[in-house]
């Protein structure tokens, strides 16, 4: 494979250039480097969290080319040349995204650990479906577990952030 270098112990590493939140980062990783660790360790972006690490809890959710995915189950080598959006990149500079504003207004978080993934899943939903039904909101975040809020205020916040039909 192109962009592969081998060190004296025979360990292969790959060059990865990825657009994260609008900035392009180039790093060298092993094949078994997971995207979630790449973001947190290589790029010092700690907004994406590690919880179950098996794709069940959703707190590692990022957008990959616009689709919400579990970054704990994506290889860093597979994001070369692609676009990743993390919780840190949902806001537009200093201005909060409407979803973030509504989360604050509705107190849609308590301990906050699921919140990064929850907001990314919500943003991915509204990008594709600007006026979802309540069912569609719940379906979009069904892969994001929250132990604190029971989802009540989260669903309210996302519906409030959505375009009114």
């Amino acid at each position, binding site marked *: 494979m192109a962009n592969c270098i081998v060190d004296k112990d025979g360990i292969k590493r790959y060059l990865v250039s990825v657009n994260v939140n609008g900035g392009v980062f180039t790093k060298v990783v092993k094949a078994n480097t997971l995207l979630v660790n790449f973001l947190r360790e290589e790029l010092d972006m700690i907004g994406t969290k590690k919880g179950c690490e098996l794709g069940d809890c959703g707190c590692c959710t990022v957008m990959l080319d616009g689709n919400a995915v579990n970054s704990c189950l994506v290889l860093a080598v597979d994001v070369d040349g692609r676009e990743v959006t993390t919780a840190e990149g949902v806001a537009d500079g200093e201005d909060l995204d409407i979803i973030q504003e509504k989360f604050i207004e509705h107190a849609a978080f308590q301990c906050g*650990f699921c919140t990064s993934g929850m907001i990314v899943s919500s943003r991915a939903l509204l990008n594709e479906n600007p006026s979802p039904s309540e069912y569609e909101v719940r379906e979009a975040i069904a892969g994001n577990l929250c132990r604190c809020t029971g989802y*009540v205020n989260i669903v309210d916040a996302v519906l409030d952030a959505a375009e009114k039909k």
Partner: protein
Amino acid sequence: MSVKVNRDYSYVGKSLDRNDSYQKTTGRAQYTGDLKFPNMLYGKLIRSDVAHAIIKNIDTSEAEKLPGVKAIITARDVPAMKYGLSPARFDENIFCTDRVRFNGDKIGAVCAVDEETVYKALKLIKVEYEELEPVFTVEHAKKEGAPQIFEEYPGNLNTEIHHKFGDPDEAIKDAHYVRTDVFQGQRTYHAFIENHCSVGMWDGDKATLYSSCQSVHYVQYHLARVLGMKMGDLRVLKTHVGAGFGGKLDPTGLDFAAVILSKMTGQPVKMFYDHAETFLNGRGRHPITMTLTTGVDKNGKILGHKYTAVLEGGAYTGLGIASTYYAGSLLGVLYNFENYQFDAYRYVTNLPPCGAQRGHGQPQPRFAFEHHIDLIGEAIGVDPIDMRLINARDANTYTLAGYEVKSYNLKAANKMARDASGWKEKRGKLGVGRGIGVGNGGFVTGAGFCQYRTDLPHSVGMIKIYDDGTQAFVYSQAVDIGQGSDTVLLQMAAEAMGYPYEQCKMYAGDTDLSTLDFGAYASRQTLMAGWAIKRAGEDIRQKILDQAVEMFKASGKIKEGWAYIGNRELRTDDLDVKEGVVYVKQEPSLTLTFEEVARRYFVTKGVLIGRGWYHPGKLGGNHKGAAVGTSPAYSSATQIAEVKVDMETGQIECVDTWDVHDSGTIINPKLFHGQVHGAFYMGIGETIWEEVLFDKKTGKLLNGNFSEYRLPTALDMPPVLSLTLDESWEPNGPYGLKEVGEGATTPTMGAVANAIYDAMGVSMTELPITYEKVWRALKDKK
């Protein structure tokens, strides 16, 4: 107590935004696992893979040779002093010294330059065990000749309680109706999403430990004790904490290892769990068998009640003694009856230890009693809510155990829930497969006693006004684990001082910087830390007003003999301060800003500090174990749930829920209702879905993941209508408040179980009430 309450506050009672809103919604909030320090090492615990065994040999030689491994420690490298949470049962070691007591027990720790190397090193460690026969059930633990897991618990009996008030046998003899039911509660666990993590580092003789914990004080206290350090030499602090629900109260092997390994290596060490290890850390709900016998008169009034609880405690005690007491100690608060016998037994087994989980020992007994009461009502022809109205406690009474209950509005809560849910139109009229059920609950607002014997106050608050008066720094070791304690304490501080909330900043959960507080458990912080902070705020206010008197006089705005104030000197009590403005009550246009007064204070008198503290004082109850159950205030709550049951498959769907909370003054309604939502969520999950499962032969954890330990998803959760009682006001709580965080979980299991019974007609006495159990019950009924 019906009090016309004046709630004209600036900040208390307002749904202000959380103080951590920006960080948490933008991915900036740092949790312990997000911390990075120069030269930091990564570490994990070495765990047993057998349930009950003598450790013959731990061979770390291969692991030590792996490049990047920095240190490996086992029991011989650390102090052997035992620790725990209940002083009567300190039975845990940092690492097992001679034997392991559950599959996953901690026997050592490894640290290395990165995560991957740690995992590789763990695989190279070889442990030789002499396996012993394991004990996985209470039946086995009790048996004659069963293996003894601890020398100090003969018969594997860890806790035994016998309470008797009045004469229940006599009272039941003359009852119109007597009923006995047996119920089973299952092992569940807190299932917070953030795994435990600890980062330790040293600077000379001073250690610093970041810990994802609920109480920096207890972690500091226990670590200092075992490691032989002065408490002041160990700084324990927290970053943002990803929830706890009782599971982050015990000091963990990560805490000890982080401090020890960082000293050994001279580098910061981050110790962390994988998600399955949070299950192995345990400290969740005990499996519990509950046998209830109640005698009532023809109206349903409880004449006598006998209750036996048998708990399976897992391998270590932790808070397990308190859990055992709580299983029975609060029943007499909810309901008013005089004749009560409570016998409880807690056994140890070779499984992860059980401890405190939201509602601490109460939720499953509430499930049992609330369903039992419904069955009694059905038998004698009394509606479930009427059963509760007849028996619910009133305010300003003493329980049979001698606990004083001031505000208490359980009857009003029942009525409001009944009306809000449409109970009268629905109960008995929803048709087969649909049901509505009610459950009552409530909790202590802080425990009357510290976890260890001490004369310390329960909370100390300190507020510093910045030199130029533009900021107020509020200090408390109270820990915000998501419930919002930072925000509500800041609201109370601002209110007490008369200072703008926006200019208040919290320094919480740091044993160096913040002042003593026992931490987040027993739903104590809003009341106890609240009192300490409120008093600190009032101290500031007093100093500000005294200073302002001087300044008004010196300004010439108030002359001696001023007519408005009765021709006498201006006094402090002629002034008031609100939202940053000091004013003369009799002439409000005469003002000074808080800032200018504070600045003048700083210049003339030095730093402006307010101090306050709180101790609950001697609380009632003279029987053995009375300590568990004492509290300055008791909340109460009624919850109603409406469910649909598929009468063929047994599938249960919770379609609507209501909660009415008797919580006194609500400091922040938005955050308050969020707590109710989350408590409902946990209660519904534990009623229908959640159970920790183990292999019956090896004691290995089978479902330590979020796909087989099923939490409800957003598609499974019903709407929640959360209501409060305006007339509820608690004299023992600052601003009249009482708790909500734990009390809101206690009615849920009863309400949902009762709704399921109403829907399908078969009494389900074993939690979780899974679809398959309902299916089987319906099949067997035919």
